[in-house]
């Protein structure tokens, strides 16, 4: 019976937004779940209605675990909970109906967002493949899922304006948990833009650069410079006379003009060796 008590306490703590405490209480709860054989949906423990109800509660507990670890900046924990939730989500008995705008899609989309903010694009696409082809989800009509999908699309196209508009305006976010990623995403966005700028311009006035990177104009040039150099880790940007000059990696292009003779020699030698072995 202690499981019920613990669960009730967890719900309460979660509603009071005491996420750190949620984390602490989750460990004993999970132990209890294991004792009751509820941490994993199997064929054996999902054959009656009561058992499915129990599993649903277990799922809700894990969902709270995922959200609370996310909100208390415990990304590893978040990842773990998402992995634990996966068998629940793919179980057809627990989730018979298509999911739309539910906690399930919310958590999945948060996970997608997490992958995106960490720059794990290939994992992102692997997840997407699963989601698009599952009958359970309808990406086009789900406000949660649509958000990260669109974000990635815009990011790839270089449509930074749209992203900025979405990120800047909190009301555009489908739920408050997304706000958590805002800072990381803004940073990632600026990094992307800065990388592009570096390649594109030879020189650019500082004020314009601030505009392009969405920094406020009234920010002093010195702080701007230090942000660029320390936070975004951009090297080769020279600040001079109110404008920035980029030192491009053009050297590598120029280096290509003169064929590297050592390379050439080693190639030819290896051909000779191989031909000799054939003859």
């Amino acid at each position, binding site marked *: 019976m202690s499981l019920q008590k613990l669960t009730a306490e967890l719900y309460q703590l979660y509603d009071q937004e005491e996420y750190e405490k949620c984390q602490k209480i989750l460990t004993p709860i999970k132990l209890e779940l294991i004792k009751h054989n509820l941490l994993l949906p199997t064929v054996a423990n999902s054959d009656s209605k009561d058992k499915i109800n129990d599993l649903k509660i277990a799922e809700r507990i894990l969902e709270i675990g995922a959200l609370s670890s996310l909100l208390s900046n415990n990304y590893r924990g978040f990842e773990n909970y998402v992995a634990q939730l996966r068998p629940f989500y793919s179980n057809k008995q627990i989730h018979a109906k298509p999911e739309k705008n539910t906690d399930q899609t919310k958590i999945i989309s948060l996970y997608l967002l997490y992958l995106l903010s960490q720059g794990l694009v290939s994992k992102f696409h692997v997840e997407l493949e699963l989601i698009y*082809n599952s009958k359970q989800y309808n990406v086009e009509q789900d406000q949660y899922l649509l958000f990260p999908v669109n974000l990635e699309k815009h990011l790839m*196209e270089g449509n930074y304006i749209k992203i900025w508009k979405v990120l800047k305006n909190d009301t555009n976010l489908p739920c408050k948990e997304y706000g958590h990623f805002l800072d990381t995403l803004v940073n990632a966005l600026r990094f*992307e833009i800065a990388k*592009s700028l*570096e390649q594109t*311009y*030879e020189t650019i006035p500082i004020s*314009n650069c601030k505009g392009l990177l969405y920094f406020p104009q009234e920010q002093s040039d010195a702080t701007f410079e230090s942000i660029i150099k320390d936070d975004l880790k951009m090297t080769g940007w020279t600040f001079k006379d109110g404008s920035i000059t980029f030192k491009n990696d053009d050297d590598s292009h120029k280096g290509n003009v003169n064929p590297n003779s050592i*390379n050439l020699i080693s190639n030819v030698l290896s*051909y000779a060796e191989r031909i000799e072995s054939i003859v």
Partner: protein
Amino acid sequence: MVEVEMNGTTPSVRDELITEIELSFGLLHKAAANFDNRYISRVFRDLGPLRRKLAKNGDALATVIDRLYPHNSASRAYLLEVTGKTDESMDEETKSAVKPEVDLYIHLLVQVYLLDNNRLEELNKFNDKVIYLLGSYNRRSLDFIQAKIWFYISRTKELIDDLHSIRPALLSALRSATLRHDTETAASTITLLLRNYLLCHEVNQAMNLVEKTEFPENAGSSLVARYYYYLARINAIQLDYSSANEYVIAATRKAPQTQLAVGFLQAATKLSIIIELLMGDIPELQLFRKQSDSLEPYFMLTKAVRLGDLKLFEEVLKKYEQAFKKDDNFTLVSRLRQNVIKTGIRIISLSYSKISLKDICIKLLLDSEELAEYIVAKAIRDGVIEASINHEHGYMKSKELLDVYSTKLPQDDFDQRIKFCLSLHNDSVKSMRYPSADNRSDINKHNLAAKEDEMDLLKAIEEGDLDDFMD
């Protein structure tokens, strides 16, 4: 329905069939005696036509079984049951126990027969018995038959839409095959597992399997082709287009170039078109000419990307959505949107040496100049175009094209091609088949029969067994 068909067959067709099946037993015995799996390849070469005849003549199969199995054999009863004949107690003649090769071959024939007659539920039950039987044998001469049997077991599960339950059995089959150095079965089960995972869209699982297993080097080329195709798919989903491209090309090259493998080739071609487009290349027109009908959606898609026409692209996507989804390529196709934009920019950069951002906006139907600036900047960074932007005056200036021949590029390309030729030569040398020493003396004696036999076998291997290729 089966009943009617059985009654409708003339006895002569039936008898022919019976002799044909019994003839193949001879080859199977030979394979067992000589430890030469090539005889089995030969049997499989005839399996295709045999299968089509068999589908209508379950009766013949029943007769063969009846003649072959002794009464005390455990398999006899259920084999006869599924082929639709009751076990009539005939005279108690003594029959020797059935050789494992023949036994499994019969099981394979029954599988094929049930599959072709669409009796999936029965087949599924029958498969459980087959799996049990497979576990009881351990002979290297069975490898080829085993590999094929697993294919049909897995196919059954696929058709009755029960992909999860077969996985443990496949995995344990893979384990024992690997331990026994049974390359054929190992290769077959690996491809089956990959197919299973990909059908469920569990790319992560598939990736793990690829990482943890080693695909046998000397597996049959049709299996290798399949394996490469799945690898290409996995890599494409994970955005690693250049390796995906390598794999898909290898898959099309390894695939048997006969009528029976058309489905596979088509699927591979579709994938290869998309991968090429995603890499920013345009597939050659010739590719579409060969098989125009099925590739139409892909042709339209290529057209849209080539023109850099965003509107056309959206139209194509909408119109052929079902077709793309059917091929499981929809997610890959929808990634192409950015490529369409990039091609648009590339065309502009090639035609103008200097153009204002505003004009780019108009040409690409973008919302604002600012947006155009970002998109162009991204294109420059991704290496799509060689250009720079002048922010104050708001124009894009293309860089003068370098003379390619003054760079290292031609040398690199040359190097790549030479390496390819050399490795092709090496591979061909490696894959040549030399007769063993004692065999050679036989041939030297101009043993005509042996030579003919050898030629037949070679032919069988060349043609491969392609019956089960599907898209």
